[in-house]
């Protein structure tokens, strides 16, 4: 029986290509393409980071290549999601976590704002109905008050 320290695990340094792993360079050049398309009126585009085989080194290399931008948004829906604009305008690093805090999706989205941030018209219709009924409750309560005072 060997001890844990005797089980050989060799971590190899990523191949350097302009200071970055080959995979990272490929992602960056795809992002350049996506940014150019979206900036010229193309549809928003997304990369699923979990679908890419990246080592932890690749990941941090990608993060430092992109940096942090001006906006960070937090979405609280079945767990916390963070939407961080990177130092590259219009490029968002999105982490979705479930209620247990587990990462369920990690995306790079190229868009003026991430699509998920916009309120949906269906929700707004339901919300306006809810607000109207609150207003009616307030009105009828006020009417009852007035009636009680007069009599």
């Amino acid at each position, binding site marked *: 029986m*060997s001890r844990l320290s*005797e*089980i*050989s695990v060799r971590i190899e340094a990523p191949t350097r290509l302009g200071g970055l792993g080959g995979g990272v360079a490929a992602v960056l050049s795809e992002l350049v393409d996506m940014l150019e398309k979206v900036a010229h009126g193309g549809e928003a*585009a*997304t*990369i*699923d980071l*979990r*679908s890419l085989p990246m080592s932890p080194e690749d990941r941090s290399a990608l993060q430092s290549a992109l940096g942090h931008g001006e906006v960070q948004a937090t*979405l609280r*829906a*079945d767990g916390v*999601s963070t939407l961080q604009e990177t130092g590259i305008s219009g490029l968002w690093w999105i982490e*979705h976590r*479930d209620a247990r805090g*587990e990462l*369920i*999706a*990690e*995306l790079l989205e190229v868009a003026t704002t991430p*699509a*998920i*941030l916009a*309120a*949906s018209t*269906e*929700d707004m219709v*339901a919300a306006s109905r809810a607000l109207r009924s609150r207003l009616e409750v307030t009105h009828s309560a006020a009417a009852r008050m007035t009636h009680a005072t007069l009599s």
Partner: protein
Amino acid sequence: MQPLADELAVGDMLRQNGVSRRRFIKYCTGVASAMALPPWMGPAMAQQLQNAPRPSVIYLSFQECTGCFESFTRSFSPTMESLIFNVISLDYDDTLMAAAGEQAESALAKAMHDNYGKYVLIIDGSVPTGAGGGYCTSGGKSAVDTLREAAQGAAAIVCVGTCSSFGGIPFADPNPTDAWPVSAIVANKPIINVSGCPPIPEVITGTLLQYVTTGKVPDLDEHLRPKAFFGTTIHDRCYRRSFYDQGKFAKTFDDEGARNGWCLYELGCKGPTTYNACATTKWNGGTSFPIESGHGCIGCSEPGFWDKGSLYSPLSATDWGKAGESSPRQVLELAAGGIVAGAALGVVSAGSGRLRQYRSEHPLDIDAEEG
């Protein structure tokens, strides 16, 4: 009039439960990522599901060990409860439902009657036909009779696990209960086989979600398995593949090769001939898969895996991967086409031979009734 809960579209149901659109898009994004679908599929799925009706789902358990159902309940993304509450209407499941006895059986009859032609039928377990079907009965009815009746009104049948897909362990030689896969009993209905012993939880829920989203049977391989999950072999996606290519093999489970994480081919790994998503989707919320834990693949999602020789002998020394290996359904189709199957196929497994004999004695029930 307020529609019945079961008639509501998924989107209405969500709004009624106070689930915002953002929350639902996030949920679908997580599902798409877990299923390794392209990232635009998440929001697209959310959009399509908004107006999709919640289909009635009937889950029947036959000659099985409940391992598949246990697997189903452990799906991380989507979770089974999120499917039940938001996407499907699970009208009968004898393991999960609170009702029992007469109450449960009448729930089944009502679901089949009210949703005739529209419900999704999930079958778990093989169908024993020996002793007049007496090896597996529930509510006084044999599994084979229940299947014949339930299949009539089903829009599609999803076979969960290798037993309902290919016969599985009960079908293995000498098959004492004369057990058969669903495809041997039912014809003229779309059948989706989600094989595995058990199948990967996310492959079960993902297949159901994909069917509900699109309302269509997904692209299937020759064994009727969804290509999205069964399109590549374990070996194609295995992280130890480079050791196979370099000829570096573990020879025993405790030698230097095993410790170095070399290829497990010589220890009986069936990865090269097994189609499944274990190497990518993995198990237990993406923790690992058998090869990552140091044990070779046993090929549990393939037809007849139990009868193909030792799990610990290399592929070259077993009956795996022989030319002409056919699924029960293929053999049926060939037999129906009047081809002398044995000669035409070259090598046919013993199981397929038995199936041909069964088919010649028992015409496909639904064929007979519709024809």
